[in-house]
């Protein structure tokens, strides 16, 4: 019966499937369908992310269990596991959850390159060195939904140019939704952050930029983007094209 499922039938089952709540014969049919149907794959992924809400647990990971895992993976001397470092500190939690999304980004790279599991250090080095726009977009989207994320709109004085940014409490930030005009080949956009009384370069963005990650070393009060000569400048040489204040939370 399950083999006769139509696309609509399968779609109706995707929620239950994501919760492991369909029968085995239906699992087989849906698994086969997902191979060829990105839209349904995406829906299952979204359902699973939603379901993680139901999994939040106040319990710490059991320390004794780590010892068993460490023994199982063949290490005689397990790495010290310090439960004391699990501090229920809000800023830290935010950072940890952000990085979960960043992990997805890393594996996007692995998937794109289609690697088999061959455990070679040089393979991994290659992976680590490559940046990937899809991964950045995912990381930026994840940052935007953090509870402590501050959203900043950078605008030109006339309001015609707009760039949106997200800044997390630890200084990690992303420029998203950039709609700046493409610059000439001898120019580049450069991002600046105001920290205290200082204006610090947060990165040279290129002439036609997409989502970009940046990291500020201290509490940012403003962001601004200028056009500079290719290679960037140590200090802004012109008025900002767009700028925005970061409201404290």
């Amino acid at each position, binding site marked *: 019966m399950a083999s006769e499922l139509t696309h609509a039938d399968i779609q109706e089952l995707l929620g239950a499937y994501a919760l492991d709540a369909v029968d085995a014969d239906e699992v087989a049919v849906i698994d086969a369908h997902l191979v060829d149907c990105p839209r349904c794959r995406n829906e299952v992924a979204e359902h699973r992310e939603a379901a993680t809400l*139901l999994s939040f647990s106040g319990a710490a990971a059991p320390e004794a269990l780590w010892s068993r895992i460490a023994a199982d993976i063949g290490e005689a001397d397990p790495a010290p596991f310090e439960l004391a470092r699990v501090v229920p500190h809000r800023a830290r939690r935010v950072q940890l959850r952000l990085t979960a999304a960043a992990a997805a980004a890393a594996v996007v790279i692995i998937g794109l390159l289609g690697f088999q599991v061959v455990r070679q250090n040089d393979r991994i080095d290659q992976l680590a060195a490559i940046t990937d726009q899809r991964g950045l977009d995912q990381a930026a989207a994840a940052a935007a939904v953090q509870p402590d994320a501050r959203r900043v709109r950078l605008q030109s004085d006339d309001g015609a140019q707009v760039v949106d940014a997200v800044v997390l409490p630890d200084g990690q930030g992303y420029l998203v939704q950039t709609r700046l005009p493409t610059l000439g080949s001898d120019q580049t956009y450069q991002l600046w952050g105001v920290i205290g009384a200082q204006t610090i370069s947060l990165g040279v963005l290129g002439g036609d930029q997409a989502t970009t990650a940046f990291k500020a070393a201290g509490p940012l009060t403003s962001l601004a983007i200028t056009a500079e000569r290719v290679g960037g400048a140590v200090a802004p040489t012109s008025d900002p094209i767009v700028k925005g204040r970061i409201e404290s939370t």
Partner: protein
Amino acid sequence: MKTDWSQASDAALVVAIGRWREDALAEAYRRHGGAVYGLARRVVRETGVAEEVVQEVFVRLWSTPDRFDPDRGSLRSWLLAQAHGRAIDRVRADSSRRLREEQDARRTATSGYDVELEAWDLAVADRVNEVMADLPAPEREAIELAYLDGYTYREVATLLDTPEGTIKSRIRAGLRRMRSDLIDAKTGRPWHQS
């Protein structure tokens, strides 16, 4: 070489796990092991079995980190899905007995979602509370019976004496609502008003 992984991204951890860095796996366990264990224990309701499930999931991450599919969400979501599948396999074996017990139990009590006890911290609890509160009770009930109690949608239909098609729809609609509520709760305000 001693590395402090506590500030590393999950991305960096996965790369390091690919290089056989056990301390990176330890950090991944420290971050996500509690949630994975909590879910496994909730589903199988036995500490020893839950521990087996968690052990399998992290050993699998160690041996085949590339099985973590980038297009299917975060590392945490992947670990939880792995654990959930394994936990379900263990409880399904005696599901007909559980079904009868549950039917008996439901005549006297209804289960609630006690987020205060389960949430990571207050910030998360607030968000989960908001999302779950917006969920119509029939959708929430169907999702909890399927995901946390491990019943198939057909079994849920039997339990609730409701058509199977209705249960399928409730689960799917409820998950969609949770996701969109979650996004709204966090990014609902337009940028220029924040």
